[in-house]
């Protein structure tokens, strides 16, 4: 039963239904009721007699969590927060990026996080301390509640920024840079970014910026979008997993020796020490990359796995992903409308549901299935999905799990100003040139793209929901049934 095997999936499914309802313009009471019905429905669908002991109590506890969570999630969405009435803010620039032809900075102040638009030539770098006078205004919010079938996805700037924790826009009358914060993630990001841009050749720059500071080079992004491998540039579970795995590989010999050296402190092969150290590295990496939704989701998921390891209770992959996704929704429910959150959760859940497939079979099946599962979201947002992605992802995922650590290693001397940095960086550049040549050649052989279609999206939704059913330990028949039913509701709604 789901209640016992993957309880977090019940909560996630119910909360997602409630948010889907609100997004589609259903009244809060109807959305809450639908969420409760989904909770009960999924629990009923997965029931198989005899139920394990304690199922009732677990179910009741989960139901309370469901209601409390619904209150936490729906309240800020249904009752938009008031704009703080401040005339002056002081804080740290936590994000700086291009926005159309202007630049925007996010300033973390005592009154919350504000969005400020600045001319490109006068933008402030991340980590700098600024003092801004002006006035706070609501985020631009177009009235798009009425259903518009002409476009599958409409971009809403207010939702985009709310998903990033912004409380309001601040229209500045003066901006003064008062200094640089020391030893914050933002200042470290700026320093790393500066070093990468100044010391690395073009391709190394672009890939390192994407993997280490979460900044995407538009040209490289265009290339990867054409190859169907754009996910490699967004910091996600893939990157977080590589960072933690590489660190643990390095740490393992140390961890093995610890119990012998300090038997009283470290037991069981230093598992606790490894998990704690890996957790520190994990969150440091996520902070450095700007703590994007996908990175946070992945970090939470890996953290659940690490905690399970440390406590000797290995977690179920689907449940771990659901715990992470639920935590992110509780923290900021607006993330539900963020494409990054959706893509990352769908891809991670798909991979988690396929976790039983190991070795070559796993590598060959996972890439195309993730491609299929994410197709409706990608096609709805970007118009088309390149078919070559199906083929290139077979190679790209295993290849980049080696390329990313390798180029990071090769970049280290150049970034730290050690001798031989230029040679090492050129070697990294050469590796990336080879990949680029291979991807370009493959893409030229398979130039086709797939557009969004109701049939394709419906099929993808059925595949994804069926896989989820399997991941929740439902039988194939029940999973398929749930998939078809879910797909029907989704398409009636959108």
């Amino acid at each position: 039963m789901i209640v016992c095997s993957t309880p977090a999936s019940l909560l996630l499914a119910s909360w997602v239904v409630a948010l889907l309802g609100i997004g589609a313009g259903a009244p809060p009471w109807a959305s809450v009721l639908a969420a409760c019905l989904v909770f009960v429905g999924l629990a009923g669908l997965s029931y198989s007699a005899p139920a394990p002991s304690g199922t009732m109590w677990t179910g009741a506890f989960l139901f309370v969590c469901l209601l409390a969570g619904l209150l936490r999630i729906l309240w800020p969405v249904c009752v938009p927060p008031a704009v703080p009435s401040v005339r002056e803010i002081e804080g740290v620039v936590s994000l700086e990026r291009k926005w159309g032809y202007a630049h925007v900075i996010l300033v973390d102040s005592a009154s919350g996080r504000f969005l400020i638009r600045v001319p490109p030539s006068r933008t402030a770098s991340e980590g700098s301390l600024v003092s801004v006078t002006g006035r706070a205004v609501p985020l631009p919010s177009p009235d798009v509640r009425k259903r518009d079938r002409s476009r599958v996805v409409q971009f809403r700037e207010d939702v985009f920024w709310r998903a990033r924790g912004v409380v309001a826009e601040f229209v500045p009358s003066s901006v003064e840079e008062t200094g640089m914060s020391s030893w914050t993630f933002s200042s470290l990001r700026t320093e790393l970014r500066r070093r990468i841009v100044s010391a690395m050749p073009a391709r190394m720059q672009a890939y390192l910026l994407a993997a280490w500071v979460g900044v995407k080079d538009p040209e490289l992004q265009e290339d990867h979008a054409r190859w169907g491998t754009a996910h490699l540039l967004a910091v996600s579970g893939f990157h977080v997993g590589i960072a933690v795995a590489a660190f643990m590989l390095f740490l393992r010999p140390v961890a093995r020796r610890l119990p012998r050296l300090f038997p009283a402190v470290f037991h069981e092969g230093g598992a606790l020490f490894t998990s704690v150290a890996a957790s520190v590295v994990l969150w440091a990496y996520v902070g450095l990359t700007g703590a994007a939704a996908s990175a946070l989701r992945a970090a939470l998921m890996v953290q659940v796995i690490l905690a399970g390891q440390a406590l000797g209770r290995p977690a179920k992959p689907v449940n771990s992903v659901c715990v992470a996704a639920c935590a992110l929704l509780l923290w900021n429910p607006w993330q539900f409308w963020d494409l990054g959150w959706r893509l990352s959760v769908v891809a991670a859940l798909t991979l988690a549901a396929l976790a039983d497939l190991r070795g070559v079979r796993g590598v060959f099946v996972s890439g195309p299935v993730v491609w299929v599962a994410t197709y409706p979201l990608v096609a709805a947002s970007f118009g088309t999905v390149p078919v070559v992605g199906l083929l290139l992802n077979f190679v790209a995922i295993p290849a980049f799990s080696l390329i990313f650590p390798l180029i990071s290693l090769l970049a280290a001397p150049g970034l730290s100003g050690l001798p031989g940095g230029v040679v090492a960086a050129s070697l990294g550049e050469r590796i990336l040139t080879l990949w680029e040549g291979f991807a370009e050649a493959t893409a030229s052989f398979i130039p086709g793209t797939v557009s969004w279609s109701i049939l394709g999206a419906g099929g993808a939704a059925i595949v994804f929901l069926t896989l989820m059913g399997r991941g929740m330990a439902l039988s194939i028949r029940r999973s398929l049934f749930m998939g078809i039913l879910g797909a029907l509701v989704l398409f009636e709604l959108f």
Partner: protein
Amino acid sequence: MGWNEEKKKSLTFLAAGVLCLAAAGFLLVTFSGRWKSPPSGMVAGPALSMKQTETPSPVPQPTFAPPAEWVLYVTGAVRSPGVYRLPPGARAYQLVERAGGLRPDADSVSINLAMPLGDGMHVHVPAALSVVKGANPQPARAEAPRTNGAAGEAGGRTIRAADAPVDINTATNGELEQLPGIGPKIAAAIVEHRSTNGPFRSIEDLLLVKGIGPKKLEALRNSIVVR
């Protein structure tokens, strides 16, 4: 509990589950589009009054505090090339003085020592040899620091000879399209950016144009200039 009873119970739960899921779907489909959230533009506190809502005052243009000192980079035929800090408003001769003065081989004619500088500039003083050899003398040039990148730090201006690369501040769409990797779309974006935000302060400012990343900028670096 017998096998049949267990099966019966499972089937009952299954049917109830399906019914609940179908009811949830029906509920959402029926009520979708019937509710509109309150506008997210609610403003708290007394700072913004109703009068302001009725006749909104024009948004003031932000002013930016100038840096306390300029960081400048000088290379070429000076005694001590390097990075120097000078007060805002400094001219080229002050930077050259700070760098120990001109070397004997410096082309003192082509460098405009009275040239006004800006924060983050790179001033290059050419040697006299290049003037003798070249058909066109190559005057001192000022460029933005290469460390600029996407962060968009301070830029500079560049002054070069007549046969020098394309000036992105004056080039037409056609001229820009002659550059490697620049098509009509990016050329139009460069011109639009220029007309919207004013002239480019440095080569690195091209990173602000949609469609130009570090890779393309590197390919362009030797073919463009900012005056």
